[in-house]
C-alpha cells in the first residue's frame, strides 16, 4: 500500500514525523490528558481510538495549537516544538478537519477557502487550485457553489481541500465519518489512501472500530486521558480493541424475535410538516406503523429531518392534522406532549442538556420534569395549589438510578454533574420506569460510553419484549443492527418503507439513507 520513497523513509530508521512525549493537559484538577506518548510515522494512517471523554479532542487541540499543554513535549521531525496557535501549526505542515465545520453558508466554496488562508491570493486563482486539488484527490467540488446548497459530505470535502491547500505533511481528521453515509465514507477512505501513497500522514480520530480496522496502519488507544495501548488494528479483534477502549468486556445486546401480530401502537399517516425556521427540514408525507413488540429503527445522516420528526411525534410542536398521528388508536396530531404521555407514550430527545434535562436541577427534579403530568396523582398534592411531593419523587429517582446503574456523586446531584452516559441512563430509565406502551427515542446513545450504550440498548430491546412499541431514531448503524426488528431510513424529510432487520445490510441501508427509495431501483444501479 505504501509508496516507494515512504518505505525508504521508514527503513532508514528516520525519526517519526511527529513524536509526543508525556503530554498532559489539566483543567483545574481534572486531567484531560495525562502523560500521553504518541508517535506518527511518515506515510501512515494512524488511528486515535477512545470513547467520548477519553481525551482525544484535547490531545489534537494541543497538536493543532488551540490549547496549550500543561506539561510534556511535542517534537516535529525531530525538533522540539511549541505550537503556539493554529496558524503556526499550519506553517509547520499540520492540517486539521474538525468534526463541526466552520463554514459560512451564504458564501461560495472558494470564498470560504479564501477566508481560512493566511496569505492573500485571488479568488480566481484559488478556485482553479481548489478545483485541481479536488479532482486529484477524488473530492468532486464546485468552487462557485454556495455552501448552503451543499450536503454535509460535500461540506466536509471543503474542509479537506482547505487543509490540503496548505500542502500539509500531517492531516488530522476528527470523527470524519459521523456525518457520512457508508458510501460517502468509502469515498473518503480512497482519498485517505491517496494521501498516504504520497507520503503524507493522517491522524484519524474515531470510536468506530470497524472502519479503524479497515483503513488504519496503527492505532493508539486512549482511556481516561491515558494511553492504554498501541497496536496494529488489523491484528486485533473488535472485542480486544473495545476492551482497550472501555477497560472491560462490553456486553452484547440479546435480541428476540417480535411477535408477528402485535397490536398497532403507533401509526403515522402522510405526516407533512412545513419548516419552522429557514434551516429546518420539512417533513414530506411520512408514514409508518409500529406494533407492540417491535423496534423500528430510523437510520439517516444528521440533519435530514430527524429532530423535526421527533418534535412532531412527541407533540412538542403539534401538527395541523389530528389524524396524521395515532397513538393506540387515538388521533393525537394536535395534542401536546403531556396529553400523549397520558395515553402511554414516552419520549427521549437527542439533546440531554437543556432539552431532556435541566443541567442545574437535581436528578429528582429532572424526573419530575418529564412526569409532572403523567404521574400527577402520585407526585402532586393539595389540589389546585399543586404541592410537589419531593420525598416521593426523590424515592423514585433513587429507584431509577439503581435500576439503570447510574453512577453519581451524592444522593440527588445536579443533572449537569453526571457524565453523558450516566445522565442518559437516567433519562432513558425515567421513561422505562413508567412502562410506556410507545417509546420514541432520538439518538439514544449519542456521545455515550460503550458500557452505558450497551445497557441502554438492552433496555430498549427488553421494553419491546415486554410488549411496547419502540421507535429509535439513530445515526449509528451498529446500534440499529443491535436493536432493530425493522429498519427504515430518513432522507431530506422523506421516510423510506420499513424493511425487516434480517433482510438489511449496511449497503442497503446506505442506499436508503442516500435517498434512493425502493431497493429494486438500487439493485438495478
Amino acid at each position, binding site marked *: 500500500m505504501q509508496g516507494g520513497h515512504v518505505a525508504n523513509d521508514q527503513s532508514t530508521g528516520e525519526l517519526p514525523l511527529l513524536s509526543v512525549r508525556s503530554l498532559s493537559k489539566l483543567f483545574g484538577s481534572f486531567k484531560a490528558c495525562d502523560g500521553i506518548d504518541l508517535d506518527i510515522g511518515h506515510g501512515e494512517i494512524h488511528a486515535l481510538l477512545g470513547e467520548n471523554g477519553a481525551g482525544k479532542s484535547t490531545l489534537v487541540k494541543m497538536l493543532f495549537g488551540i490549547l496549550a499543554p500543561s506539561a510534556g513535549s511535542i517534537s516535529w521531525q525531530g525538533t522540539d516544538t511549541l505550537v503556539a496557535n493554529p496558524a503556526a501549526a499550519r506553517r509547520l505542515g499540520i492540517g486539521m478537519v474538525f468534526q463541526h465545520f466552520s463554514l459560512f453558508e451564504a458564501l461560495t466554496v472558494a470564498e470560504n477557502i479564501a477566508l481560512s488562508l493566511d496569505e492573500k491570493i485571488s479568488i480566481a486563482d484559488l478556485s482553479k487550485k481548489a478545483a485541481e486539488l479536488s479532482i486529484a484527490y477524488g473530492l468532486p467540488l464546485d468552487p462557485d457553489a454556495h455552501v448552503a446548497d451543499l450536503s454535509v459530505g460535500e461540506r466536509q470535502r471543503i474542509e479537506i481541500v482547505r487543509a490540503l491547500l496548505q500542502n500539509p505533511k500531517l492531516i488530522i481528521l476528527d470523527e470524519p465519518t459521523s456525518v457520512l453515509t457508508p458510501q460517502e465514507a468509502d469515498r473518503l477512505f480512497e482519498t485517505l489512501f491517496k494521501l498516504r501513497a504520497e507520503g503524507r500522514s493522517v491522524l484519524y480520530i474515531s470510536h468506530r472500530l470497524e472502519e479503524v480496522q479497515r483503513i488504519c496502519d496503527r492505532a493508539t488507544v486512549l482511556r481516561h486521558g491515558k494511553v492504554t495501548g498501541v497496536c496494529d488494528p488489523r491484528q486485533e479483534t473488535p472485542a480486544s480493541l473495545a476492551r482497550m477502549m472501555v477497560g472491560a468486556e462490553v456486553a452484547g445486546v440479546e435480541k428476540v424475535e417480535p411477535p408477528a401480530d402485535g397490536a398497532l401502537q403507533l401509526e403515522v399517516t402522510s405526516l407533512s410538516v412545513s419548516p419552522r425556521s429557514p434551516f429546518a427540514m420539512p417533513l414530506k408525507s411520512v408514514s409508518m406503523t409500529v406494533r407492540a413488540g417491535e423496534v423500528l429503527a430510523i437510520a439517516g445522516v444528521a440533519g435530514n429531518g430527524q429532530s423535526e420528526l421527533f418534535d412532531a411525534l412527541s407533540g412538542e410542536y403539534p401538527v395541523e392534522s389530528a389524524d396524521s398521528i395515532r397513538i393506540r388508536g387515538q388521533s393525537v396530531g394536535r395534542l401536546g406532549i403531556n396529553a400523549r404521555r397520558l395515553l402511554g407514550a414516552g419520549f427521549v430527545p437527542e439533546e440531554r442538556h437543556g432539552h431532556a434535562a435541566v443541567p442545574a436541577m437535581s436528578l429528582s427534579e429532572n424526573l419530575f420534569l418529564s412526569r*409532572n403530568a403523567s404521574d400527577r396523582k402520585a407526585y402532586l398534592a393539595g389540589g389546585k395549589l399543586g404541592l410537589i411531593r419531593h420525598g416521593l419523587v426523590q424515592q423514585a429517582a433513587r429507584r431509577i438510578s439503581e435500576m439503570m446503574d447510574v453512577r453519581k456523586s451524592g444522593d440527588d446531584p445536579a443533572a449537569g454533574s453526571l457524565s453523558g452516559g450516566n445522565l442518559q441512563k437516567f433519562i432513558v430509565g425515567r421513561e422505562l420506569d413508567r412502562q410506556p406502551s410507545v417509546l420514541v427515542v432520538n439518538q439514544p446513545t449519542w456521545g455515550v460510553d460503550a458500557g452505558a450504550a450497551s445497557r441502554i440498548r438492552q433496555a430498549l430491546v427488553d421494553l419491546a419484549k415486554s410488549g411496547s412499541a419502540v421507535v429509535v431514531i439513530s445515526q449509528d448503524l451498529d446500534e440499529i443492527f443491535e436493536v432493530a426488528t425493522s429498519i427504515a431510513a430518513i432522507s431530506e424529510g422523506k421516510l423510506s418503507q420499513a424493511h425487516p432487520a434480517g433482510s438489511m445490510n449496511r449497503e442497503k441501508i446506505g442506499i436508503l439513507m442516500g435517498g434512493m427509495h425502493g431497493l429494486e431501483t438500487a439493485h438495478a444501479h
Partner: protein
Amino acid sequence: MRIELERRPRQSALFAIVSPLLALALTVVFGGIMFALLGKDPVSALYSFFIEPLLEVWSLHELAIKAGPLILIAVGLSVCYRSNNWNIGAEGQFTVGAITGSLLPIVFYEWHSPLLLPLMMVMGALGGAAYAGIPALLKTRFNTNEILTSLMLVYIAQLFLDWLVRGAWRDPGGYNFPQSRSFVSEAVLPEILSSSGRAHWGFAFALIAAVAVWLMMRYTLKGFQIVVLGQSERAGRFAGFSSRGMVWFSMLFSGALAGLAGISEVSGSIGHLQPSISPGYGFTAIIVAFLGRLNPLGIVAAGLVLALTYLGGEGAQLSIGVSDKVTRVFQGLLLFFVLSCDTLILYKVRIVFDRGRKLAGRSAS
C-alpha cells in the same frame, strides 16, 4: 502573564454567602474614597450614612416605609427574572397602580365605606398588572423585546400621572398646586404601630408577599415551571409547560405587586397623588432583586439595605451637606459590585504566567 477565569466544577457554597458581603464591603470602601474626594471625612460621612439612621425608633419606621415598596416590587420581579422574562418597567407599573388605586378616593371622594381601602388595593394591583400586560402582549404576539417596551412604558406612565394631577384630577381647592384631593381617612392605609411611628401596612404586605412567593418557588408546581422555563425554554416545552403562558403569568404577577406597592405608597405615606410619587423604587427594586439573589427571603434583607441608602442619603444631605445624588452612586456601586462578585461563585480567578511565548515564535518560522 494573564488572568484566567476558571470554571468551578460546582457552585461555591462559600462564595454564595460571601459574595454579597464582599460587595457591601467594597461599596463602603469605594464610597469612603468618594467622600474623601468630595473633601469630607470618610469615617464620619459613612457613619451618618449607614449607622445613624439605625439608632432611633422613628427612623427605623422610615426604613420600613422605604423598604416596603422595594421588597414588594422586587419579590414580583424575582419571579419574572427567574422565568427569564425581563420586566424593567416596574416603576411604570407602580405609577399606574397608584393611579388606578386612587380612582375611588379621588373621583368618588364622597364615598365612605370600610370596603374602600380593600377595593383600592385590588384596583391598584389590577392596574399594575394590566400595564405590565402591554409588554407581555407585545412579546407573545409580536416577539418584541420586553426590556425595551416595559422601560419605555415607564415614561408614559409618569407623564400621564403628571398630566392627571395638573389637569383632570387637580384638587379644585388646592390653590392650583399640581396635586389631587387628599384621601379621606377611610382611604388611608393605617399604621402598624401608630404609637411609635408612621410605618404602615405596606411593609406587612411586602413581608407576606415574600414568604408566599418563597413557599411557591420551593414547594409548588408553579414554582417548578418558573424555574424550568427560566433555565431552558426547550426543556420547559418537553415538560409540557407553555413559555407563552409563563410570559403572561410572570409579567402580570410582577405588575400586580408593583401596582400594589404603588397604591400602598400613595395611600399609606403620601395621602394624595402628586407629579412625583417615587424616588425610583421600581428601578432600585431591580438591584434589590439581584442583591437578594432572586430569593424572596434574601430580597427582604436586600430591601432593608437599599432602603438604608435612601435614608442615609437624606440624612447626609442635611448633616454633611452632600447632594442626594450620592444615594444613586451608592446604589450603582452596590449593583456593580454584586454582579462582579457573583463571578466568584462560578469561577476561580487564577493568574497564569505564560511560558515561552518567545519559543513559539521560533518554532513557527
